[in-house]
């Protein structure tokens, strides 16, 4: 509220110049590898990209629909493992492998969504948490397939036209950009359609939503599936990036990190997912000199954020006028004769 006017101007300004700003941003993203950044920095940037995808995925569930998941590391793991196993053991190309991984994570999303339909709040959160733990147990024990605690090594990089994408040739970076772009587009499309509105309505008041004819159960499941699929894709990409995965890559902390990004950035927003992941991925890197204090500081950051800006850093109610197509606005000018108006 306090920053009302300041943000108003900024938001309007950004909106006004959204095309030139977008173009600059896009050029910057495309040209990033040629700015002479070290591989270390590029790797961090790619990690930011991956976590943005993960956050966008969780955002559909938590931000749009209001279902808090503490177990997204489970979908992340399934996506990574399925992709890696298909590529390693069946020598399938990344694209079909990731595609199958998305289908399987989607099915898992469905399976997790079904029993959680009747659950709310805490109950739902603990079930998602449990799901991730179960996934981890399967990974650790299903040795013939997952290689157990030894993890999977030498996961090949995606290759196109005979060229392996690597960090060095920036292939992995551009590939990440493409995936990120697709996912972002999907999220915007969801948000701006009746699906997005239905999910939001469910979050706000489930009973009222069902009284609007929204099949709340189906939509919640759909949110689960979409969220899982996006997370699974991010997992597949992650596996090929790091080329080694084991159960330790998918712990509870990862789930919490994704959730923190969503909340810190601003639940339900898309801008926030980018901003949140930049913040939370870069933070540990620059905080290295803090050593042990790093986690304490991290904890403090979470606490202070929730205390002073619980809606997230970039979470605010937009003040831009809703875009009503012109001919309707005209009609709106002749103000209503009938209709109870209060003076």
């Amino acid at each position, binding site marked *: 509220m306090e920053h009302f006017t300041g943000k108003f101007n900024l938001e309007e300004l950004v909106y006004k110049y959204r095309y030139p700003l977008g173009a600059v941003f896009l050029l910057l993203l495309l040209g990033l590898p040629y700015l002479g950044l070290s591989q270390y920095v590029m790797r961090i940037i790619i990690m930011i990209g991956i976590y943005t995808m993960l956050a966008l995925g969780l955002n559909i569930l938590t931000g749009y629909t209001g279902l808090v998941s503490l177990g997204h590391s489970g979908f992340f793991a399934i996506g990574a493992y399925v992709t890696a196993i298909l590529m390693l053991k069946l020598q399938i190309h990344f694209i079909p492998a990731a595609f199958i991984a998305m289908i399987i994570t989607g099915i898992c999303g469905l399976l997790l969504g079904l029993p959680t339909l009747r659950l709310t709040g805490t109950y739902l959160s603990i079930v998602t948490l*449990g799901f991730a*733990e179960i996934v981890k*147990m399967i990974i650790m024990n299903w040795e013939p397939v997952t290689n157990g605690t030894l993890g999977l090594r030498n996961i090949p990089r995606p290759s196109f036209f005979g060229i392996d994408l690597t960090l060095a040739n920036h292939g992995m970076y551009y590939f990440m950009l493409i995936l990120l772009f697709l996912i972002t587009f999907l999220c915007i499309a969801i948000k701006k359609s009746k699906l997005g509105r239905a999910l939001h309505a469910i979050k706000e008041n489930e009973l009222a939503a069902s009284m609007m004819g929204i099949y709340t159960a189906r939509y919640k499941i759909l949110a689960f599936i979409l969220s899982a699929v996006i997370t699974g894709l991010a997992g597949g990409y992650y596996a090929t990036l790091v080329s080694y995965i084991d159960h330790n890559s998918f712990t509870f902390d990862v789930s919490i990190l994704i959730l923190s990004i969503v909340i810190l950035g601003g639940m339900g927003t898309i801008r926030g997912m980018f901003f949140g992941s930049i913040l939370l991925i870069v933070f540990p890197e620059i905080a290295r000199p803090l050593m042990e204090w790093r986690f*304490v500081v991290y904890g*403090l950051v*979470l*606490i202070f954020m929730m*205390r002073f800006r619980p809606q997230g850093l970039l979470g605010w109610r937009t003040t831009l006028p809703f875009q009503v197509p012109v001919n309707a606005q005209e009609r709106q000018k002749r103000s209503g004769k009938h209709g109870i108006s209060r003076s």
Partner: protein
Amino acid sequence: MILQQAFNGLALGMAYALIAVGYSLVFGILRLVNFSHGSVYAFGAHMVILFVSYHFGLAPAIILGVVLTGLLGILIDKMALSPLRKKNSPGISSLITTIGISYIIQNLLMMAFGSEKKTFPELFPSKMITIAGAQVSSMQIVMFIASVILLLVLTLLVKFTKIGLAMRSVEQSEKIASLMGINTNFIIAFTFFLGGASAAIASILISGYYQIVYPTMGFVVGLKAFAAAVLGGIGLFHGSIVGGLVIGVAEAIAASLFGSAYRDSVAFIILILVLVIRPAGLFGKKGIEKV
């Protein structure tokens, strides 16, 4: 063998139940999933070994540890959670906050005590008792009795006393409770104190049994205890105890049938199965919402 494993499972379950009671207490009164509970639990045990190392003697160290951990509970609330309640922040904010708190406590403990596993003094010379061919340690029996007492005390407190009525009012609306003349600050502080103290009691009993203490000791048990609390119907003390025991026994069965490696996820499998059939847990009643 089966009997022995059942006893082992019950003993294990008692540990979960002891911790679960704390989750239930804080959730029951404040509708808050306190993710820092596991760290607070570790804090309790560390305080005791600290005081013991300064030659306070075991009993004073335990009392000091329990009180101090209770105070830590109050501190957590005053510093981090009460401002959120004042602003009517959504539940997820408090959840993230308690996770933040958990990081802080755990890492401060690591810095102060190191991450290695340390010994916890034996509370009393424990003996093995043979019941119907199965071996049970006297410490386990003490744990069992302690949690039943804890259950009874808390249930009586919340259900039948005036302060309990105040606690339940605060649960539903802090604002209205205060308008009815209830000192909500005190009630909430009291609840957090009980939550912290119960965590400390749990950790002292459990550490006394295993004699191992380290900063992250609360994580895995904490998660399982949380599952146990939800399984029984979070906010219900008897639910927490039964939930804990069910999970303990289920783990024992799973370990016997499939091997110890499958043990840890049994808690969650059972939890999911139960919640599918009874969405509010074993003893939970469906929330009412008047349309």
